[in-house]
């Protein structure tokens, strides 16, 4: 895979950091790729904005910062508005359609994933919306293999919640059709 930039963005507490980390770990540990994950610090724990950037590549990654995301996974309208200017034209935006609708006329490919609603209604835990989104992303864009993500989820979520998170992940994959 050539260099691919993926940005997760939303509020603190929505699990965007973990989603990015799992993606990166899946790529590196299980798919043998190179990956970099970076994130914003500080306000997230207090409910402020949170961002998690992942760069994936088959080759060593030189420039370590995301500059123009190929893919953006957004949990809030605020996040979309904040970062959309940086998106690569024609890039893919996966958004939580159960929380907001994006403005019309932007030059990106939008796909709705009703993650929060699905997480709450079908899994009983709003907190796993991030895994739903990750499932959607994985199924839709295949940045890494499904098996890799599933292994990474198992190793990175709190003990005892593995199955719930995997279920959410698979639900997301289903939503991607």
């Amino acid at each position, binding site marked *: 895979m050539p260099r691919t930039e993926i940005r997760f963005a939303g509020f603190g507490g929505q699990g965007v950091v973990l989603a990015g980390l799992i993606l990166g770990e899946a790529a590196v540990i299980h798919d043998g790729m190179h990956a970099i994950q970076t994130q914003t610090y500080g306000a997230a724990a207090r*409910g402020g904005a949170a961002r998690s950037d992942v760069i994936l590549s088959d080759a060593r990654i030189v420039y370590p910062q995301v500059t123009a995301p190929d893919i953006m996974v957004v949990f809030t309208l605020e996040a979309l508005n904040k970062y959309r200017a940086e998106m690569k034209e024609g890039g893919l935006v996966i958004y939580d359609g159960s929380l907001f609708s994006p403005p019309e006329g932007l030059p990106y490919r939008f796909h709705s994933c009703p993650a929060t609603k699905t997480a709450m209604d079908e899994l009983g835990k709003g907190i796993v919306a991030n895994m739903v989104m990750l499932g959607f992303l994985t199924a839709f864009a295949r940045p890494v293999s499904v098996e890799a993500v599933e292994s990474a989820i198992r190793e990175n979520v709190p003990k005892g919640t593995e199955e719930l998170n995997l279920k959410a992940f698979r639900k997301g994959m289903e939503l991607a059709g």
Partner: protein
Amino acid sequence: MSRERVVEIYVDEALCKGTDGCGICMHVCPKAVYDRSSRLTPKGIRPPEPVRVDDCTACNRCMMFCPDLAIVVEAKETAER
């Protein structure tokens, strides 16, 4: 001459940090005046909803304990109706 007390409760949803993480107002209210709202505010939180204002005794506990000065309780004595 009998008077009636009208209690007004104001929750500043821009200041409130949400009943999920906080909820102190609900916890300290001796009259269970508040419910957790089902609405998500633009700040992404679910504020308290003073659904049983009539039970409120204006004891001010919620106001005093709210860590974010997000609640104002005002009791007005009105003349007999």
